[in-house]
C-alpha cells in the first residue's frame, strides 16, 4: 500500500513538471505564434488529400463517410507514430538535465506525450470540422476522450520502452522509422478490411491499432456500438502496455545518467 502511495505521488509530481516542460516545448516549436499551429495541420491535411484521392478512386465511394474514416485513422495513428518516433531520443536529448539536476527521467517521456497531445487536440478540431461538413452527428465525439485515454496509455507504455531502448541502442530511432512505416501499411488507416479471414485480417486481429481504430470509427462515425471484444481489447492493450513500459523504464532508470 505504501509503495502504491509513493508511486502515485511520484507520478503526480512528474506529471506537473511534465506539463510545464510540454508547455515550454510547444511554445518553442511554435515560436509563440498562433500561425505556427498551421504547421501541425499541414501534415495530416496533405496526407489526407493524397489518400482521399487514392482511396476514393479505389473504393469508388463504396465506403460510407470515407473522408471521416480516413482522417480519424490518420490523426490517431499519427499521434502514436509521432510520440513513439521521438521517444527513443527523449532521454539522450535531455542528458543535460539528467546529469545536472536530480530529476525523474519519467518527466521527459510524459512531457513528450503531452506536447503531442496539444497538437493532437488541434487535429481533432479539424476532424470535428469535417464531421460538421459531412453532416455527421458530432455528439458521439464525446466518447473520444474515453478511447483516447487508452490510446494514450498504450502510446505512453510503448514510449517508455523505446525511451529505455534508445539509451542503449543509438540507432533505434531509425529502426523504428522502418518498423513504424510497416505498421502503418499493415493497419487499415486508409483502406478497409472487409473480410477478417484474409491474411491481413488475421494479422490485424493482433494489431492493437486495428482495435483502437475500429472502436473509434464505429462509435464516432457510424454510431454503432463496438463489440465487447474490441472494447476489452483496447483496455487490455492500454493498461498492459503502460504497466510493462513503466516496469522496464523503472528497472533501468537508475543507470540512464551514466549511459547517455
Amino acid at each position, binding site marked *: 500500500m505504501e509503495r502504491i502511495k509513493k508511486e502515485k505521488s511520484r507520478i503526480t509530481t512528474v506529471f506537473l513538471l511534465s506539463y510545464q*516542460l510540454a508547455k*515550454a516545448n510547444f*511554445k518553442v516549436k511554435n515560436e509563440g505564434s498562433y500561425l505556427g499551429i498551421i504547421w501541425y495541420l499541414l501534415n495530416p491535411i496533405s496526407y489526407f488529400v493524397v489518400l482521399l484521392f487514392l482511396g476514393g478512386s479505389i473504393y469508388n465511394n463504396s465506403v460510407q463517410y470515407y473522408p471521416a474514416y480516413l482522417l480519424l485513422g490518420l490523426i490517431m495513428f499519427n499521434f502514436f507514430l509521432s510520440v513513439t518516433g521521438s521517444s527513443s531520443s527523449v532521454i539522450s536529448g535531455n542528458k543535460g538535465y539528467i546529469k545536472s539536476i536530480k530529476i525523474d527521467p519519467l518527466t521527459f517521456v510524459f512531457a513528450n506525450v503531452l506536447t503531442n497531445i496539444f497538437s493532437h487536440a488541434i487535429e481533432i478540431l479539424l476532424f470535428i470540422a469535417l464531421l460538421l461538413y459531412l453532416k455527421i452527428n458530432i455528439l458521439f465525439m464525446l466518447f473520444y476522450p474515453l478511447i483516447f485515454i487508452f490510446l494514450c496509455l498504450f502510446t505512453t507504455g510503448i514510449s517508455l520502452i523505446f525511451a529505455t531502448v534508445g539509451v*542503449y541502442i*543509438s540507432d533505434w530511432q531509425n529502426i523504428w522509422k522502418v518498423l513504424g512505416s510497416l505498421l502503418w501499411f499493415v493497419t487499415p488507416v486508409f483502406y478497409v478490411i472487409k473480410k477478417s479471414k484474409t491474411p491481413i485480417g488475421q494479422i490485424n486481429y493482433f494489431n492493437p491499432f486495428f482495435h483502437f481504430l475500429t472502436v473509434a470509427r464505429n462509435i464516432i462515425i457510424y454510431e454503432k456500438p463496438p463489440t465487447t471484444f474490441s472494447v476489452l481489447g483496447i483496455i487490455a492493450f492500454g493498461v498492459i502496455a503502460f504497466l510493462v513500459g513503466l516496469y522496464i523504464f523503472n528497472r533501468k532508470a537508475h543507470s540512464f*545518467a551514466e549511459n547517455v
Partner: protein
Amino acid sequence: MNKIEVKNVSKVFKAKIKGKDVALSHLTNFFHDDKKNTYIQVLDDISFDVKQGEILGIIGRNGSGKTTLLQVIAGVYSSDSGLVVRNGETVYLTSMGVGIMDKLSMKDNIFLAGALMGMSQKKIKDIYEEIVEFSGLGDFVDMKVSQFSKGMVGRLGFSISIFCLKNRTTEILLLDEVFGSGADLEFETKAISKMEELIKSGVTVVLVSHSLEMVGKYCDRVIWLDKGKIREIGQPKDVISRYAK
C-alpha cells in the same frame, strides 16, 4: 548528527567505444564480442561523513572524481558498491541556470527553470519580482533569451537558482563549481554575497570547486581527491597548502 554518510563507495564507468551502441553491434556481440569493454575506476572506496551545518569542500585535479562523487551523493548516479545516506531534503546544483531555453522569453524561463528546481507555479509567482529585480534585467522580461548576451544569461540563471534555493526547504546543498555567474563585476560581487548568505544559513553543504580561495574561506573541512581516492581529509589550511604544492 550526520547529514551525509558515505561508506566504502566505489564507482566504475564503462568507456564508450565508437560503434558499439548500434543495434547490429549488440546483435553480433551477443554471439562474438571482439571489442573488449574498457572500464575506468572513477571512485575507489570512498568513506566520510558530513555533520549537520558543516561545509565540506572537495578539491582535486580534473578527472579526480569530484563531480562523480557529488553526483553519487545526489543520487544522479548509483554507486557500484558501498552506501550513501542522505538525511534531509537535498539539492544538487551543477551550474547556475539549468533549464534555460534560448527560444523562450525571460519570463517563461523563470517559470520553467523554477519548476525544474522543484518550485510550484504559485511559489514562483511569489518570488518572480525578486528574481527580476535581483537580475537587473527588468526591461527585458518579454525578450527571448537567445537575444541576451552571455553575461545577461549568467545573471538570469544565477538569480533564478539562488531565489529558488532560498525559498524551498533545503537541508543539504551539493554545489559543483557554482561560483562565478559570468556577469560583470558589480553583479558578481552581489552574487557572491548572496551565495555566502545561503551557504552560511545553517544548511549542510558539500562544495566542489577549483577556487582554493573560496574553499579556504567557507569550508570547515576539505577532502583532496586524487584518481578517485581520498588522498587527504582535514583542515582547509593544511589540505589546501599541501595540494597547492
